[in-house]
């Protein structure tokens, strides 16, 4: 998988986004404090926001090109999104939530069959329940399953563990690893917690003030960051 | 005391005197008289120093308000019926009631069309699909229209074409826009719009007696000023103003 963001520009009030980046397969972390522009980048990749300039290409296909006025709508991009609290549809059962994307598979077909996904994420027993009756961890797993059933070429995760306490976080991490290893879905993992990124990602990009500061293997990048903050 | 001081005292006293004797009059009057009465009221105010305040409305609503105790000194109604009701309820000072104006019922048609209406019988014609009138129960002009049509024996024939409306303005609008083929209003109303033309002027002898009575309300706090204002309305100066607006003299 190759995702390239070229010359992406966006202004919202005082906030200016300026990003040029390329992401390969596997799990790439997007690290930065809140307000650094991470969520905006995800929204642009998913097609929920249009940049004022720049282009987004996924595996060579143009998703957005501001200069030519090209903008593929979100439902046709094959890009899944798991927002911070899962964003499950409260008026539907878990089963209906997971089946929402059924019928539209822009991805690898058989690999993302619903039964398999549900088993992978251990949510088989939750099917008849309502989102309101689920714990935080269960909600995230259902949200992941829902996104995976649509067979995405790329999965965007916006601080998926942020709302969970440490115990739950630990409980959900293995499932994320399963998605990475068994389904091999490329993921872009946004977080402000270095530990999570280190636990899951092979590469990480650092954002601050709307710009991409650095990108590279996790160990190296974090070492550099620590060095920046070390006492002189 | 020297002369300038004397003059000053007399001057101040005169002002105070006129101020003290100036009355505040509440005159409840039919809305159709708004413009004319506003002018007459101003003339009266200048002449006497009294301050006339008007409450314009539908005659039915005004009578109701007075019955419910509204602080009116004088009523000028668009029909005798409402004042009859007030008289019967003992709310009028006897002897203060008199008719000051008359009006004429007319049939109007859209100015932009060649209307076939020339005489009342034409209202039954095939081309006349709708005739606008004020709702007879509510609008005096509508009640007079009904009375006239009944007198001519045309009421049963045209009643299915009638579009009763809330007020005379609505009748004017309906005719002016061509949505109805004819309408009944007063002569004074018809003068207001260039989009309508008077097709039939109901002769005063044949038509209903449309007179505007004035009366002084029994509960007035200014009986003197109220009676004086009522008399002023019959005077030559006021009548000249009314004539300008198309009103006729009662007789």
């Amino acid at each position, binding site marked *: 998988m190759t995702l390239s963001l070229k010359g992406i520009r966006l202004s919202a009030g005082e906030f200016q986004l300026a990003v040029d980046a390329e992401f390969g397969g596997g799990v790439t972390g997007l690290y930065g404090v809140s307000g650094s522009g991470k969520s905006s980048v995800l*929204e642009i990749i*998913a*097609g*929920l926001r249009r940049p004022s300039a720049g282009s987004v290409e996924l595996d060579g296909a143009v998703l957005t090109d501001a200069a030519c006025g090209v903008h593929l*709508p*979100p*439902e046709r*991009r094959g*890009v*899944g*999104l798991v*927002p911070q609290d899962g*964003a499950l*549809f*409260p*008026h539907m059962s878990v089963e209906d939530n997971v089946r*929402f*994307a059924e*019928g*539209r598979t*822009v991805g690898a077909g058989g690999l993302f069959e619903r039964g398999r996904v549900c088993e992978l994420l251990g949510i088989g027993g939750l099917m008849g329940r309502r989102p309101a009756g689920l714990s935080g961890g269960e909600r995230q797993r259902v949200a992941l399953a*829902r*996104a995976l059933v*649509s067979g995405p070429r790329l999965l965007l995760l916006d601080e998926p563990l942020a709302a969970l306490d440490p115990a739950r976080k630990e409980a959900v991490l293995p499932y994320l690893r399963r998605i990475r290893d068994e389904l091999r879905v490329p993921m872009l993992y946004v977080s402000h917690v270095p530990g999570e990124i280190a636990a899951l990602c092979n590469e990480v990009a650092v954002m601050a003030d709307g710009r991409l500061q650095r990108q590279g293997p996790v160990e190296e990048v974090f070492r550099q960051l620590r060095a920046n903050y070390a006492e002189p | 005391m020297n002369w300038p001081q004397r003059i000053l005292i007399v001057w101040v006293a005169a002002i105070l005197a006129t101020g003290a004797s100036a009355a505040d009059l509440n005159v409840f009057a039919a809305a159709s008289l708004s413009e004319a009465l506003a002018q007459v009221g101003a003339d009266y105010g200048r002449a006497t120093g009294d301050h006339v305040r008007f409450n314009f409305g539908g005659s*039915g*609503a005004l009578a*109701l308000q007075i019955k419910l105790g509204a602080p009116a000194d004088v009523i000028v109604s668009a029909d005798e019926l409402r004042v009859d009701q007030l008289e019967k309820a003992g709310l009028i000072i006897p002897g203060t009631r008199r008719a000051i104006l008359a009006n004429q019922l007319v049939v109007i048609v859209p100015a932009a069309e060649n209307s076939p209406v020339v005489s009342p019988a034409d209202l039954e014609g095939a081309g006349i699909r*709708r005739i*606008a009138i004020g*709702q007879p*129960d*509510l609008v005096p002009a509508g009640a007079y229209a009904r009375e006239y049509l009944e007198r001519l024996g045309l009421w049963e024939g045209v009643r299915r074409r*009638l*579009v*009763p*409306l*809330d007020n005379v303005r*609505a009748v004017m*609008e*309906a005719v002016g*826009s*061509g*949505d*109805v083929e004819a309408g009944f209003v007063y002569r004074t109303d018809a003068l207001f719009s260039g989009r309508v033309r008077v097709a039939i002027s109901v002769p005063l002898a044949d038509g209903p007696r449309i007179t505007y009575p004035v009366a002084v309300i029994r509960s007035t706090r200014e009986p003197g000023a109220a009676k004086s204002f009522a008399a002023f309305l019959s005077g030559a100066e006021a009548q000249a103003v009314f004539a300008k607006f198309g009103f006729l003299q009662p007789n």
Partner: protein
Amino acid sequence: MGDVLQVTLFTLGAAVLSTLSILPPGIALGWLLARRQWPGKSVVETVIALPLVIPPVATGLILLRLFGRRGPLGSLFERYLGVEIVFTWKAVVLATAVMSLPLLVRTARVAFEEVPVRLENVARTLGAGPWRAFFAVSLPLARRGLLAGAVLAFARALGEFGATAMVAGMIPGETITLSLGIYRDIQLGQDSAAYTLLGISVVLAFAAVTIGERLSRRRPA
């Protein structure tokens, strides 16, 4: 008594028809105002709010000018559809629709504003186009507010009178509604007749509110 029945059924029918006819545009406008920005949006908001702000009689006058036989819209109806609007029952439906639309739009807008945009966004990424996202996510989640708006609009339609009198007249058997009847009876001092009609209006309004409650409670949101 037959008169009262006719007036009641007519008023009910007109109010139902009027409310049903403003549901699609009212909901659509509510959603647009909640979700989208565009130049001139405040003009649209103002125009929609006008019937609430100006005297009903003035709204009636504007409708008369627009939908009269020679009016810009009325002439189109007459020429292409052979349909006459003013001074018929259609004008009653039109006037009540125009007067109750602002209430529906406001309530719908608030209802949609309470649906997190996040949910609609996620639905889009899951392959739902804008229409599916609306019908599968936004609409069901806004259901209670929209129902409340519909009930409000219906109640307003029942009580509407000033604009209706102007553009539909008070033609017995054709355009007289409960509220017109009440107005007339009060003016004529026929209080007991007025109270009868008033009582009927209250019963209808109560029924509408109860049905609205039932419908909005049927499935937990």
